[in-house]
């Protein structure tokens, strides 16, 4: 299964990809497009990627999880134009028991956010557009390596629209 998709991602297909008779627990994370960011109303967004590296990095992350836990993992990240509520990313981890499935699923989605070269351009309801910079709580462009805070998402305003 390719880890990047320009077409809608269906969580059911990833669950099916990891489900086998001996695996009794499947943990699934589904990331969907949110309608707000740092207090602003988001109308839509576009994901872009350094695709050859992103594909390779996703494969490495999945392989690392499979080496660490007795799990089967599938993950896909959507690219291109998405609307509110569209599925952006799915991770499915299946194991004999739930503990390993939850641990692997959490580890993979955290690694995807930290390591996979994907970028998000948000289009706001007020007509402005910005690249999302999770490293910057002040809304400026740019950012430094290694200081990501997954719950401190904010935006860097690049230009104002009408």
């Amino acid at each position, binding site marked *: 299964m390719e880890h990047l998709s320009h077409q809608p991602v269906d969580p059911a297909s990833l669950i099916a990809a990891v489900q086998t008779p001996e695996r009794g627990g499947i943990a699934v994370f589904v990331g969907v497009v949110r309608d707000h960011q740092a207090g602003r109303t988001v109308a839509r967004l576009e994901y872009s990627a350094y695709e050859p*590296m992103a594909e390779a990095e996703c494969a490495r992350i999945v392989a690392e999880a499979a080496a660490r836990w007795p799990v089967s993992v599938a993950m896909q990240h959507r690219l291109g134009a998405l609307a509110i509520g569209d599925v952006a*990313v799915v991770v499915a981890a299946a194991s004999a028991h739930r503990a390993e499935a939850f641990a692997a699923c959490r580890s993979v989605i955290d690694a995807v956010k930290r*390591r996979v*070269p*994907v970028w*998000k351009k948000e289009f706001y309801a007020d007509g402005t557009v910005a690249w999302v910079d999770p490293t910057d709580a002040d809304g400026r462009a740019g950012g430094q*390596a290694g200081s*990501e805070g997954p719950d401190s998402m904010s935006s860097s305003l690049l230009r104002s629209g009408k």
Partner: protein
Amino acid sequence: MTAVQTSTIRVRLLLFASYADLVGQESVELVLRAPATVADVVRQARAVLPAGDRIPERPLAAVNLLHGKLDSPVSDGDEVALLPPLAGG
């Protein structure tokens, strides 16, 4: 008899997302004096690209599809990418 070795290398620099917007280019070839590191690539990109100084001095970087550091070596023919803050998921 002495031979002065001033070898140079060529690397393909890729820019993405906000960095590509800042400098108006997604791909450029740079010529560097060997031996070179990612830091040398960043320094030259900031010096020669239009508005290159708007790229951070210490950006995330990748060499040949693998995350690298500023002191990672780069060789002739390498693909070096400067990565704005990642925002997937």
